[in-house]
């Protein structure tokens, strides 16, 4: 937008102006009293100017508490899928938003609209105009001036109003805002820069009136020294996981994906706000929960004060104070900042490596080819099913739209597979880049979705989104020794590399596959492994808990096999897929043998819902396992907070 034009608007004309705008759009204004202030359509209830802040951040008007993602319907054999339009009936003008919330919107814009743009947010946002009304008074827990997001709105608004006695100073922040001024042009008087002096004086006066002032200059350093401080246990003991704090936060963006079925043959996938403060937000297979109560409570605070800014360059906390207002057990981000600063001074720990290393992965600007939007799957038909082990099946499928196979680019690690009516699960890609006419997945029957998938047969339809995630690198492996380590279904992700390696054996030195399982029957790719082994430079070694007649296997852990391998370890890359606990054990042994941590490639499969860096379930520190991973090298893995 060119030049920042300045206007004045007489207070007595405000209602007329709002009414003019209300003709083309729906104008929402603050109504209510005390702490219960909501944005409501103009005219439905009496507008108020007497409020500190809206009860809920304006975010709820753009990223709604519940949103439809798509609907599906089964017609005989076919399944039809419709992305749902998310248009408001009319454009919306939201009047009376405070600086902390306009800042929040600036951040959510950044978050939702880049790298895998969120179609729901995009459509609602494009229909929303935001008018800030600057505060002249602070609430009990306001600290926007300490984080630097307020007290007057600087970003995220289309128009900003500053009350100046009998009139408002009106500043346009965007073309959209400018257009609104033009729409009710007769009421706005252009004015010059001189008024800004007055504005600044008002701003300073308001800032001075703030009950809370904190110096946050060294906060990150203080945080790096207090990651395990004792006060976190007290906070965690107090938190009952009611999720109130995240529900009122302008920068909370996490959601869960839920199936809502009308009957067996049709339904919708919807998303609801979700909260990292619920215990099972991150729960993974086999009761593995990477966050306990301490890391859960700490994570929210670290995300707000550090991780968000680290990744997106925006403050993750806009200082609105709502989470402190709302907490039934008096957990306060303000007190926690104070505790952090105190503990850093009195009782500092050696700085936590994951809070000091700046391993920032390039944030890839990626967009899916799907025209239907990020969350809507494409239909595929199952062509074949193979029983791999008593609990694992191999399932082959083709897109119904053959063009999709042509468009399909090999640049991911997993797909999101939908079983209509039941849900969606991330499954790894167990095939090489050359295979472009058919998709295959190997999966274990562990729960609700995989159980239904397990019953499916040739001709049944599923939905696919993807591919997502950072894959194992291929080209950089050429010329090296490779060692693949996986157990059970965890061999699947390794197969993406094994297949091309087997096809181009001369590109590599020695290749070793270490396959482990409780029993031989529980191994996948039993036949293939015998086939692969026919390559001169490829050896398969088995580590089983129970001895087997089928193969010559070591009875015990894979780790036991490592020392006897005669490899030039400095020219070896290891590819490991296992639970984080197993990964650490294997990696330690490999490093003892002389491997560099950066040559050990691992995959971290945390709980995932969206696959595209939006739902927040998979986040570890400032990284999204679905976008930045799941493949990392061990050095990178160690630079993550130990919460995977």
């Amino acid at each position, binding site marked *: 937008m060119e030049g920042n034009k300045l206007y004045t608007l007489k207070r007595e004309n405000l209602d007329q102006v709002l009414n003019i705008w209300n003709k083309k759009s729906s104008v929402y204004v603050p109504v209510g009293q005390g702490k219960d202030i909501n944005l409501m359509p103009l005219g439905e209830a009496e507008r108020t100017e007497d409020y500190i802040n809206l009860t809920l951040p304006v975010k709820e008007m753009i990223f709604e508490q519940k949103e439809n993602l798509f609907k599906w319907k089964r017609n005989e054999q076919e399944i039809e899928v419709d992305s749902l339009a998310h248009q408001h009936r009319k454009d919306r003008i939201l009047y009376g938003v405070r600086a902390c919330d306009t800042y929040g919107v600036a951040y959510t814009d950044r978050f939702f609209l880049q790298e895998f743009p969120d179609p729901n947010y995009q459509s609602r946002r494009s229909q929303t105009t935001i008018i800030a009304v600057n505060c002249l008074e602070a609430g009990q827990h306001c600290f926007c001036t300490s984080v630097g997001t307020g007290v007057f709105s600087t970003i995220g608004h289309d128009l900003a109003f500053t009350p100046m006695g009998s009139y408002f100073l009106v500043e346009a922040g965007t073309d959209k805002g400018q257009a609104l001024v033009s729409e009710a042009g007769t009421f706005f008087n252009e004015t010059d820069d001189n008024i800004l002096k007055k504005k600044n004086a008002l701003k300073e006066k308001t800032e001075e009136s703030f009950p809370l002032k904190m110096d946050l200059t060294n906060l990150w350093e203080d945080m790096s020294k207090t990651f395990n401080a004792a006060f976190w246990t007290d906070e965690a*003991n*107090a938190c*009952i996981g*009611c999720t109130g704090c995240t529900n009122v936060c302008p920068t909370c963006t996490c959601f869960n994906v*839920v199936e809502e079925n009308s009957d067996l043959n049709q339904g919708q996938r919807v998303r609801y706000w979700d909260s990292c403060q619920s215990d*099972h937000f991150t729960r993974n297979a086999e*009761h593995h929960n990477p966050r306990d109560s301490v890391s859960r409570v700490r994570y929210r605070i670290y995300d707000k004060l550090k991780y968000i800014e680290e990744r997106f360059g925006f403050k993750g906390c806009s200082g609105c104070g709502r989470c402190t207002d709302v907490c*039934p*057990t*008096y957990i306060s981000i303000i007190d926690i900042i104070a505790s952090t600063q105190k503990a850093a001074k009195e009782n500092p720990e050696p700085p936590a490596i994951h809070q000091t290393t700046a391993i920032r992965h390039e944030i890839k600007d990626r967009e899916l080819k799907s025209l239907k939007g990020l969350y809507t799957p494409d239909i595929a038909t199952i062509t074949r099913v193979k029983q791999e082990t008593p609990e694992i099946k191999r399932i082959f499928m083709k897109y119904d739209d053959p063009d999709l196979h042509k468009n399909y680019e090999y640049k991911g690690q997993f797909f999101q597979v939908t079983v209509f009516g039941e849900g969606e699960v991330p499954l790894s890609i167990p095939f090489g880049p050359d295979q472009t006419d058919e998709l295959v997945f190997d999966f274990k029957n562990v729960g609700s979705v995989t159980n239904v998938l397990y019953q499916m047969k040739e001709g049944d339809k599923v939905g696919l989104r993807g591919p997502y995630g950072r894959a194992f690198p291929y080209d950089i492996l050429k010329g090296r020794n490779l060692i693949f380590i996986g157990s059970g279904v965890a061999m699947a992700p390794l197969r993406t590399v094994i297949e091309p390696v087997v096809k181009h054996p001369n590109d590599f030195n020695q290749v070793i596959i270490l396959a482990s399982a409780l029993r031989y029957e529980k191994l996948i790719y039993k036949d293939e492994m015998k086939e692969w082994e026919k390559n001169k430079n490829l050896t398969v070694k088995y580590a089983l808990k129970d001895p087997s007649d089928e193969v010559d296997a070591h009875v015990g852990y894979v780790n036991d096999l490592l020392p006897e391998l005669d490899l030039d370890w400095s020219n070896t890359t290891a590819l490991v897929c296992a639970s984080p606990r197993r990964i650490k054990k294997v990696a330690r042994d490999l490093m003892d043998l002389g491997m560099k941590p950066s040559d050990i490639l691992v995959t971290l499969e945390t709980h995932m819902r969206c696959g595209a860096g939006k739902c927040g379930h998979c986040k570890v520190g400032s990284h999204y396992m679905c976008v930045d991973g799941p493949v990392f090298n061990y050095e990178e893995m160690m630079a993550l907070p130990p919460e995977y």
Partner: protein
Amino acid sequence: MDDISGAELILVIGSNTTEQHPLASTRIFEALEKGAELYVVDPRRIRLTDFAHAYAAIEPGTNLPMINAMIHVIIKDNLVDRDFIKKRTENYEEMKKSVENCTPEWAESISKVPADTIRQFAHKYATTDKAMILFTMGVTQQTTGVKSIRALANLAMITGHVGRPSTGINPLRGQNNVQGAGDMAALPDFLPGYQRPEWQQTKDRFTKIWGDFSCLRGRNIIEMFNLMDEGIMKAAYIVGENPILSDPDQNHTIHCLEKIPFLVVQDIFLTETAEYADVVLPAASFLEREGTYTNTDRRVQMIHKVIEPVGDSKPDWEIMIEIMKRVGMDVKYQCPSDIMDEINEATEIYGGITHERIHDVGIQWPCPDKEHPGTPILHVGEFKRGKGLFTVNDFEFIGDQRTDEYPYLLTTGRVTHQYHTGTMTRKVWTLAREYPHGFVEIHPKDAENLGIKNHQPVKITSARGSIVAPALITDRINEKTLFVPFHFSESPANRLTGQNLDPIINIPALKVSAVRIEVE
């Protein structure tokens, strides 16, 4: 409720307040911020114990000996409030005599709470000016439930902790309208407003409003199920209750519901109980109707309709009116406030509580007339019955105890994210996800002895039946003690609980059952 935050000592007995009454616990935290101390008595190291200044890990079912021993200590160490006892109570000497032998050592032998801890609790309670007691089902759902509450009353009275702000003994209600339901006589022996049907003035009052009506004492739920079993009770109309999960001895409950010739269930969802019904009447939820709830604080509050009733469902009052019409009664109510008008007329305590008056924050009963502001604290200056009566509450073992066959004591309860029998909360993904299924808490030592691993399914058996649930190993529970939440129909805690009743008011001893546990 705000009273709590003013207390200097909060004694919590048998109440998992943070998880079951989070907003009440907010007040506890407020009090702690102001420097109050928190004393907790519970067989589980509930979350509150993390903040407690003293904690008594008590055996399930043995509150009474501990309370009596506290009284014993207070009397012996001369910490009683003589003035209060003299002016405001009667029967002190009798009570005093009854606790003569209740030494802390004796109580320790039963409750496993160290005698010195009991002394500490007694001294602290007696010497703190603003000391209040909070309790819930952990006290009531035992064979000694009523006695325990009476003993608590004794405790409060000998120390003068009654009728002043931030004192008293305060039950926290498990449900939004338990209080209201009791006020409106969902009790066998009262008419609305706690008026005894035997009293002539009550009879007259209600005859004036209702005309002739039956005035016999009703039956409580336990008696009713026994009458079903005996074939005497031929029809039942169950409104908003899921006894298959919430009542003790599930096998017996199911047997009775199968046996009864005619069963009507009125609920907002098709509950486990509704599966046995001949007629199911779909009720509307709180969002779909007008009316009032009365909370723990005796505060009568409005609820407002937000959406129209879904499908064929109707608000409970409308359903009942339809039934009244069909049995030929004359119905004069058009809307909930008409019913409230009748309540105003029929009861003293709700005399002045009208829908118009309670719009914003509600009114606390007693509120006898339309000018009355309501009553935040009961028993100021004088007890309702005149003088406070000390009672004698001797402890005796009734019901389940550990045996060789059943060497564990089971206590039951709830988890934060599920409500009661889960009919509502298990349908909400965000709550269901937190606790998708039942579990049994067991102490690490017991688990080790039995070779039980975390999350491993185990079988728990009592004399009544058995259930299977995954084990949750935690040192938050006492040794030889188990905890199972009762929300989950796949592992229904109440298949294990029994018909041991409090002999005085027949509350079942849901909190104490002898069981054994084994690897499935």
